[in-house]
């Protein structure tokens, strides 16, 4: 059971400000600072963080990863997971209330607050992935764990179907639509891959890397190796 204490999910103000495009250490205007304060308050009041995980063997995961056969011809995960020592299917959601509030704010023309809350919730969901990675590393000393998700790095989004069928995150209120998109909106899913640090290094010369402007798959390994 992975614990997701809200303070560990809440992003620092500086991270939210950066995510919303204020560069060079500039301070937000008083009106925007007030929006940030209100968004963080809403985040604390509306979040219902819940996660679920399931250990799987490499053979079991191979079938899940293959999904509907729509992955890129070559994808990093296909050479990473067979070298892992532990694999856990994983899903996490911040719950429906915060997603509903973001929709309500946009629909009611309070989109400035909606945008800030959306950024806070997205960063919090990312932080949940890091909490889960820390949990996976705590299960076996000396291993590095990273979360890999359908929709990224050549793993086709349709991979969600088999992942959900095995993991059954309906128990924490998550579902998929016909396009394999998750509800509630602020949710993440994938496989926690724990193994020697070296297995996570991705070359960056896959065809889809040329179109990718946010190579988090490589940056996160560099950051945590430093």
């Amino acid at each position, binding site marked *: 059971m992975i614990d997701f204490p809200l303070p560990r999910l809440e992003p620092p103000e500086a991270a939210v400000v950066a995510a919303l495009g204020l560069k060079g250490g500039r301070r937000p*205007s008083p009106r925007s600072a007030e929006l940030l304060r209100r968004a963080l308050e809403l985040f604390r009041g509306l979040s219902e963080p819940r996660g679920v995980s399931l250990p799987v063997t490499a053979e079991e995961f191979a079938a899940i990863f293959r999904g509907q056969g729509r992955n890129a011809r070559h994808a990093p995960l296909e050479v990473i997971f067979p070298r892992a020592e532990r694999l856990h299917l994983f899903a996490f959601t911040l719950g429906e209330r915060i997603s509903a509030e973001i929709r309500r704010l946009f629909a009611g023309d309070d989109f400035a607050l909606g945008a800030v809350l959306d950024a806070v919730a997205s960063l919090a969901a990312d932080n949940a992935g890091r909490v889960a990675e820390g949990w996976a590393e705590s299960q076996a000393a000396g291993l590095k764990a990273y979360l890999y998700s359908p929709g990224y790095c050549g793993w086709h989004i349709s991979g969600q179907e088999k992942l959900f069928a095995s993991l059954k995150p309906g128990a924490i209120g998550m579902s998929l639509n016909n396009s394999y998109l998750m509800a509630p909106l602020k949710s993440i899913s994938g496989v926690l891959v724990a193994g020697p640090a070296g297995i996570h290094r991705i070359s960056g010369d896959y065809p889809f890397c040329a179109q990718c402007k946010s190579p988090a798959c490589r940056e996160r390994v560099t950051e945590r190796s430093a």
Partner: protein
Amino acid sequence: MEILQRIAQSLEAGDDGDVPGLTRQALAEGIAPKVVLDQGLIAGMNVVGEKFRVHEIFLPDVLLAAKAMYAGMDILKPLLSSAGVASRGRVVIGSVQGDLHDIGKNLVGIMLRGAGFEVVDLGNDVAAEKFVAEAKSRDARVIGMSALLTTTMPVMKEVVDLLKKENLHGRIKTIIGGAPVSREYAGEIGADAYGYDCAQAVERVKELAAAASLRGGTAAS
């Protein structure tokens, strides 16, 4: 005209409380609604867009200004309609099928409305066929598509191909945006434009809408 400068300044400050009153005051002074729109509200929004482009302000400041713009537009809209001032055109936007990331698309929609366009927001997870069908039925000049996942980008090409198949390519212009998308990719799939961020997307849409008008307007109904 000092009142127009005050409208622009209040809008820049994101003051949606002051803008409606100042807009009414400008009208009471006999200034034409179109002039209030162009030299007050849109002038203010242009300054905001430029400050955002150079990272002097950040997104919430732009959105507060857009909200103030809406407050002013609520007063001007009926007057502009009765004076026969047309909108700048209709734009259909959405996040492509398989993609639920819609914040960037939402922001583009807000800023397009602020720039005087009518926006039909189809939401997220929108199939290629729906983009085209809605653009046709709504008589739109431009389709704007957003994607955040490399795995969903091919839907953008499906839309362009479908427009070509229906002989609408060029009459309905296309613009794409989102983290994995680039100007090169737009060229590769035959899209008419690429928007790096929401401010640039609005500038590109203005150009596309003008070009679509020159071609004799909009989609076949």
